[in-house]
């Protein structure tokens, strides 16, 4: 509910920002407003990141939150966005291949998967030899919510982790799919699903903390969720946009991201220029 209204609010801000920016800044040089399209697992962290960046640079940030796949399609079709913060590296990479990005892709965080249960669900999530998810076979669990693995990075991670723990086929019939990671959390928080495999960043949010508890799924049981950002080619504020991406890799931004449940990104883009030149096929 909270996430939903926040999304609406940020969309409104984004829409409002499009028409109003030049009026406010008087005779001095116009301070641009950056429009950032961010993956929904960033919903809590984004306020602090935007505030931190504005304090440092004086550049205001308008955030729209949503599913990375949706933003990808919108940007591909010319949405007026300066920076795209995806929950998954593959979308910025695809944008890059179609020549709609400017400069290198910047990995800014690594998403962490948790298994969340409501306080009312009786389930011992103690790890059995590192296989946390083995407990989901229990007949006490009738519905397990995950994000749609076809287009949500956390959904892919959830399926991989269930397979790693050898229970995917056993619990397959209990799985319900959320459209994005926020909806997945909401399925469990509303008491309709017993368990949800969600982002740590969401499990740390206040409503989820209040109504349940979580256990981290070990990082080695699913491929890393590399979150990456990119400057959109049609942006009118490329230097500022680039500066924001650089800010995301600063120590200050890292510590904000840590506090909201994100890990450090793995490898940085190995050789951005060669990638830009070749436009790899993958």
């Amino acid at each position: 509910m909270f996430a939903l209204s926040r999304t609406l609010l940020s969309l409104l801000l984004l829409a409002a920002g499009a028409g109003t920016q030049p009026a406010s800044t008087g005779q001095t040089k116009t301070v641009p407003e950056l429009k950032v399209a961010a993956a929904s697992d960033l919903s809590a962290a984004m306020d602090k990141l935007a505030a931190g960046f504005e304090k440092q640079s004086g550049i205001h940030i308008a955030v729209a939150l949503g599913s990375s796949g949706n933003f990808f399609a919108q940007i591909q079709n010319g949405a007026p966005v300066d920076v795209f913060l995806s929950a998954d590296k593959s979308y910025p990479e695809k944008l890059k291949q179609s020549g709609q990005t400017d400069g290198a892709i910047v990995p800014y965080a690594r998403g962490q998967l948790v298994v969340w249960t409501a306080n009312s669900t009786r389930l011992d999530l103690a790890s059995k030899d590192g296989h946390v998810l083995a407990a989901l076979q229990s007949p006490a669990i009738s519905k397990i919510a995950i994000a749609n693995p076809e287009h949500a990075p956390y959904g892919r991670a959830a399926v991989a982790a269930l397979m790693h723990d050898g229970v995917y086929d056993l619990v397959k019939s209990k799985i319900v799919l959320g459209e994005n990671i926020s909806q997945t959390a909401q399925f469990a928080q509303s008491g309709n699903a017993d368990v949800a495999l969600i982002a740590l960043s969401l499990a740390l949010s206040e409503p989820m903390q209040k109504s349940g508890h979580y256990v981290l799924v070990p990082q080695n049981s699913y491929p890393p969720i590399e979150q990456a950002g990119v400057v959109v080619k049609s942006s009118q504020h490329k230097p500022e946009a680039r500066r924001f991406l650089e800010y995301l890799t600063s120590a200050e931004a890292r510590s904000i991201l840590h506090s909201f449940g994100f890990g450090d990104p793995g490898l940085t883009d190995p050789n951005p220029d060669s990638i830009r030149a070749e436009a790899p096929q993958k």
Partner: protein
Amino acid sequence: MNWQVLTLTVQLATLTALILVLAGVPLALWLAFSPRRWKFLVEAVVAMPLVLPPTVLGFYLLVAFGNATALGRWYQRLTGSTLAFTFTGLVVASVLYSLPFAVHPMAAGFRGVDRKLIDAARTLGVSQRTIYRRVVLPLAWPGLLAGLVLSFAHTVGEFGVVLMVGGNIPGVTRTLSIDIYDQVQSLNYAAANQTAAALLIFSYGLLCLVYGLNRSFVWSGR
């Protein structure tokens, strides 16, 4: 084209339309003929799904189905599972969501029946039930048919509510509209286009049927 998705959608729409005819006819009769002054209050309730965003219904249904409400807890005790993420849950949601699409054309059909015929039947000493059965229903059939077809079509086209309470389970709650959304999200534009185009043609055909029938009825009635 995904046949499982298609079959499921047709099942959902058929069941919803049938339930709506059974529940909608008495309701529409009452709306058309009742002399009650406060009738407009009920009319407004019936019309609500026309103006409310599907998210309102979806949100309240999800909360109602969950264990935060007495209703949700009662159903879970009774059946051992929640109504969300089940086919039954989708039927409940669809019946509520498509209610005006069944009741409005039906009530319009009933209102269109010539009052003199009803009065004539009454002077001949026929009971109210028989008047409904032998006079009103046969004369109002295009309205009934329109209600049936429109509630079917509207259920096929339902998206928001299903997205919010369905849980996207293949063969249980994954309907055509959800499938198209998934395809677009996964960037399978070709597959999405195939299903979407089929749905476009189907809807056009169905609506042509409704309007065509209405037209021939008006002509033969004059």
